[in-house]
């Protein structure tokens, strides 16, 4: 990393993820997209775009230093209010974003791009994945998307209720929940499409 560049956004950012390139494995996107989630006073999900560095002019080609130094690092393209703090974000596809919230919900957002270059971020579906035995919502601490290229890939979440939940991204109503530990589950991931790994507050990793 040659230098550190900073663009203040006046938000408490609690999650950030690149979106897969729209061109897929071709990697020919001139603009790259990423989403950020924030908490505290402004609970939002924001879609940003930044120029693909592979398509940037080299130092020799730059004629106007003033123009280059004044351009922002990333441009806000769309934003949407989020129900609760954003605790984790997953980007299964270039037009879908999933979030885990402090209210124990998994939410799926659609990203739309119009022909005139506008983009939108809208909530498609949300489900309560985590709650305590007394009915109080439990924070969903982490999210992970099943590593398959299938359109019916599953998304898994873990929470402070000691449970993992998983469902197909396109059918959240088919959510399944399992209690796996008596402490807080702090992280979840899919080592394989048929296996989930979790990390617990007590310092254990379970498969």
């Amino acid at each position, binding site marked *: 990393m040659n230098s550190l560049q900073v663009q203040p956004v006046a938000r*408490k950012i609690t999650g950030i993820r690149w979106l897969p390139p729209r061109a897929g494995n071709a990697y020919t996107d001139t603009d790259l997209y990423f989403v950020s989630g924030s*908490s*505290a*006073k402004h609970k939002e999900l924001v879609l940003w775009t930044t120029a693909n560095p592979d398509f940037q002019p080299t130092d020799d080609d730059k004629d106007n230093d003033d123009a280059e130094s004044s351009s922002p690092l990333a441009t806000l393209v769309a934003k949407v209010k989020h129900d609760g*703090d954003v*605790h984790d974000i997953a980007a299964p596809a270039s037009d879908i974003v999933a979030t885990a919230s*402090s209210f124990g919900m998994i939410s799926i957002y659609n990203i739309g791009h119009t022909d005139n270059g506008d983009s939108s971020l809208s909530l498609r579906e949300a489900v309560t994945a985590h709650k*305590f*035995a*007394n009915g*109080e919502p*439990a*924070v969903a*601490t982490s999210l992970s998307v099943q590593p398959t290229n299938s359109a019916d890939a599953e998304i898994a979440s873990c929470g*402070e*209720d*000691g449970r993992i939940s998983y469902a197909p991204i396109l059918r959240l109503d088919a959510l399944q929940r399992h209690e796996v*530990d*008596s*402490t*807080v589950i*702090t992280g979840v991931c899919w080592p394989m499409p048929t296996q989930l790994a979790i990390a*617990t*507050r*007590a310092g254990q990793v379970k498969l």
Partner: protein
Amino acid sequence: MHAVWHLLEIVYVTTNSGLSASVVPYYMEWLNFNFPAPAAADGERIIGSSPDSNALAQNPDVWPYVQKLALRGHVTTVANMLERIAPAQVLSAAASRWARELAQTARDMPLASSDETSGSFNARWRRWNSGLQSMATNIGSMLDKADDDALSALAMVVDVMRGDADSISRVGDTWQDVLGAVLLYSEPTAQTERLPALAQLVLEQFESDDFTLVDRTLAALVRHELPEFLVYCNQIDAWLSAHVSDLMQHIGILDSCRRVFKVEPREHYLVFLGERYLTHEGLWRVAMDYFGLCRTRVSQNIMGEYIVRMPLESDRKAQQVLRVCERYKLTEAMERVHRQLGRQKWQRGRLGAAIAHFVRVNDSSAVGQICDQLWAEYLASGQLTYGPIIDSVLATSAHDRVRFLTVYRDFHECYKGGEFKRAGKLLLSILVGEIAPSHAVPDLLVDSIPLLEGDALVFGADDTLELMRCAESVAQSLVDSDVCGVGRDELSIFNVACARNLARS
């Protein structure tokens, strides 16, 4: 804020020996960085609109611009401008000549170096200054004979550069300008201690009613009026006063403020800033760090009161709160937070986590109640499901009830696995060690019946006698009260099983 901080650093922090102990170069650097003048754009506009030296000499803005350059010590630029103006044919021969002379003199202005002694520098300075004095005298005598606007303007530049106070005051717009020129051209080796006296003389020439808050702050600083300076800093921004008072504490100049303030100023401003940050939802952690910097009992009390009232919306935040308590040794607050978390988790059915929190604060009563709840759930359902719950707290707890549930779980697993001898040893260890609650003993005795009646000899004679001793105390409690989970029939069966086992052993 930067101007205030930078000047504070110059006046109180930058200390060197020799010539570089002079505050003048630092002050001029501060002045030109924080209050840049004259604007470079003005110079470019003047040059750009004057295609030749005649146009330049006739430009009405050029001489005020050159005077401002001289005031700020930009002597090289002064020389360049004069050399551009000098060839102008619209100038008189005298003006042209003195413009060239002044340009050369400006370039010859002595600059201090770390290799030079102050005596040597002062000698060079006096020679340079006396050259300007004689230049001023010569130009003055020419002006007596004939009016020459260019020569008058040039004379003003010379007067500024020779340190004439009246000329400096006429050219300078602000007291910072005037003070800078006075330092640069009258006392180039002045040290920090001279600032208050010089600043007072300069400030008297200006209407203090017209001063901005920043002007008042800077004026208080150069006059070394530190209590006033701190108060003004707080009016600019709470961050500034907090950090300035902290810096002043570190460099040992806060004592003069302590004689004036009723409270400890550093603590006061740090707490004030911390309380401001607490009004922002996401900045509580920063606020705690500011409180923590005070390191006084008062600030610790404030931290303790705030932190126990912090909403614990998530596990992540709860961990942060506990880390703050640990870092700043808020023992009492940490206990209250652990109890709060324990109750919260208990209500939510997270019994293992609840036990862990109560164990941290040695709340045996709460731990006992939760363990009793787990035992009651086991008795009601017949399924021993509390194993994972206990596993998560095993490492941190030496509580009898937790150990009882753990050993009992191990007993169950051995029994299910057919390891009857080991199961028997575990069951006996619970009873002999008296780690089980009294209401659970009858159930444990009933659990021993299959082991007593089994084909293999699990309990020897001594072990059997020990079991019978426990049964005696249970029988006594049946006599004393009607409350017991196990009835007389079960005890009779147990006694028979013991008798048979004794006979076998």
